[in-house]
């Protein structure tokens, strides 16, 4: 299939549009979830949506989108409430409370799902698609629901920007400024539940958590401000959604939801590896540079200390003495110091036995060593 015919395909248009909207909304809301260390909240909310999906199906008597999504939102929020009550009323920590409500609600969901399948309802086919998502089933009318829900969530984020920012960074300080912290907390949780509900049809309850976490984690690697992080996270979300949807359209039997998650994951991988200042590659390079710098500084200051110990600025240090003192081969560091004109190589004076090379500090080398020692002393004083 050529690109032009792909773009003309009605089903694919729906899928791509839906995936892009989902990416946008979950990217924005996921940023706040990740910064508030609530990445697992998305996971709990999406698994807890399954019983709601089944309840919506039972109540409506068929596969009707509106009631299914309302049910998902209801049980998702209920799970969040259970989690909150568990942490407030008992001594359980947040992670344990999230884990408990996740598994209990998901278990109820699976029981309801198998029950519906057992009743042999004619329209029950496709209900288990909510487990792993079935993007191809996206209708134009579903897109309108997604757009409305997503629009409300984004408008809230824009309107309450500084409140969400301060509550995410320093909730106690926000409270002393008179902000209703619990209310804002609850609102953010409900909005993540909304994002989850939007994504159920596309990627399903099992993989939805990645949709919330991945764009935000990748964006955090590149951005230095909340504003740019949220914008970038939205962009990554859209990108992952569209790329995943298009790839799945190129071949038969390629599931869209998992492909969206996989394309997002590759963005995460690249960001973790290559982002400036925070990426692995950057850290490895910095570590190597620091280590080289350190060795070179140590060789220089050791030469200086040997000289001052002998009360002779022109003291000729032998390489093996240096190696023994440092416990390492100093050859390369010596070569670099010599290249920078901080030390010079000298033959032993004719009257001394032995013919090992000696190293002597130049005046510039003396100054540099004194500078290093002085800054070291300052840092220790701190």
């Amino acid at each position, binding site marked *: 299939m050529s690109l032009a015919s792909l773009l003309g395909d009605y089903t694919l248009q729906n899928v791509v549009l839906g995936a892009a909207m989902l990416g946008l909304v979950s990217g924005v809301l996921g940023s706040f979830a990740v*910064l508030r260390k609530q990445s697992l909240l998305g996971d709990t909310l999406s698994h807890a949506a399954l019983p709601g999906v089944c309840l919506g199906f039972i109540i409506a008597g068929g596969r009707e989108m509106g009631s299914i999504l309302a049910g998902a939102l209801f049980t998702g929020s209920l799970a969040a409430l259970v989690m909150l009550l568990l942490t407030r009323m008992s001594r359980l920590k947040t992670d344990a409370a999230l884990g408990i409500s996740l598994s209990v609600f998901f278990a109820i969901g699976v029981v309801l799902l198998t029950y519906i399948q057992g009743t042999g309802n004619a329209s029950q086919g496709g209900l288990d698609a909510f487990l792993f998502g079935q993007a191809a089933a996206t209708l134009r009318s579903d897109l309108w629901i997604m757009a409305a829900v997503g629009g409300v969530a984004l408008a809230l984020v824009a309107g309450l920007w500084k409140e969400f920012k301060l509550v995410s960074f320093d909730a106690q300080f926000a409270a002393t400024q008179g902000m209703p912290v619990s209310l804002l907390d609850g609102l953010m949780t409900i909005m993540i539940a909304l994002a989850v509900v939007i994504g159920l049809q596309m990627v399903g309850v099992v993989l939805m958590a990645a949709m919330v976490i991945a764009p935000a984690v990748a964006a955090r690697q590149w951005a230095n*401000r909340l504003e740019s992080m949220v914008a970038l996270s939205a962009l990554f979300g859209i990108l992952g959604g569209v790329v995943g949807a298009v790839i799945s359209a190129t071949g038969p039997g390629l599931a869209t939801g998992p492909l969206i998650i996989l394309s997002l994951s590759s963005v995460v991988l690249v960001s973790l590896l290559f982002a400036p200042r925070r990426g692995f590659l950057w850290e490895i390079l910095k570590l190597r540079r620091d280590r080289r710098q350190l060795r070179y500084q140590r060789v220089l200051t050791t030469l200086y200390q*040997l000289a001052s110990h002998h009360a002779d600025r022109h003291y000729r240090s032998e390489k093996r003495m240096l190696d023994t003192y440092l416990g390492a081969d100093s050859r390369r560091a010596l070569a670099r110091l010599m290249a920078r004109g901080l030390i010079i190589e000298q033959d032993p004076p004719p009257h001394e036995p032995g013919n090992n090379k000696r190293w002597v500090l130049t005046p510039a080398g003396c100054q540099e060593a004194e500078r290093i020692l002085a800054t070291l002393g300052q840092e220790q004083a701190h």
Partner: protein
Amino acid sequence: MSQQLHEPNLALHVEDLTVSYHGKPVLWDIDFDVPPGVMAAIVGPNGAGKSTLIKSILGLVPSIAGHVTLHGHPYRQARRRVGYVPQRSTVDWDFPTTALDVVTMGLYGRLGWLRRPGRRERREAMAALEMVGMERFAERQISQLSGGQQQRVFLARALVQNADVYFLDEPMAGVDATTERAIVDILRRLRDQGKTVIVVHHDLQTVRSYFDWMLMLNVRVIAQGPVDEVYTADNLRRAYGGQIALLDDVTSAIPGPRAPANSEEVPG
């Protein structure tokens, strides 16, 4: 102004305040008064409830009994007159934001709903950063600041609130000597402007030189008043109990002889 003020001549008035956690009292029947225009220290052993006292005054920790007024008003009405510096470790310093942005957060409450900080807020935040000597770091990522610099940013965020009563929770913990001196200078300047500064402090050695008012706390109030009257061996013994052997030495402290520092280091 028909409203009846309760103890309007006190910057802070705390009466019968009791806080419990899982049924165990953390603060018991606290009566604590601070006159305006002083620098007051809250001291006591670990677990004495020093931070909890500040947090319950600010309504961050629920109290089971008692009441609090600031300049005669209950806290909810006096919120705009209060500045707060929490412990540095209570936030994630890897949050993607700059020093200037954190200071601007001190103005969010005044701005109110739906309004965004603009040029005026930026200017005020910048002025606060200058007061703590951090103007060069305004656009710096907060994760790249040292502990002392982070503490100064937090102080600037409270300064920008332009409050009458400041609460600081261990502002001198884990900062370098330069920052400690800078913080004390700024707090003194606030006091000299007639503002009230209340600080949870952990270093008994510096209490007398930094502060003029103090509360000695160990779940209950041990003593309170001007530092010279409160800082006695007897009160310290009652607050710190068994750790007093060490503290008796401190009260009659004579600096011990210091080992000569600059003996030549011999390689090997």
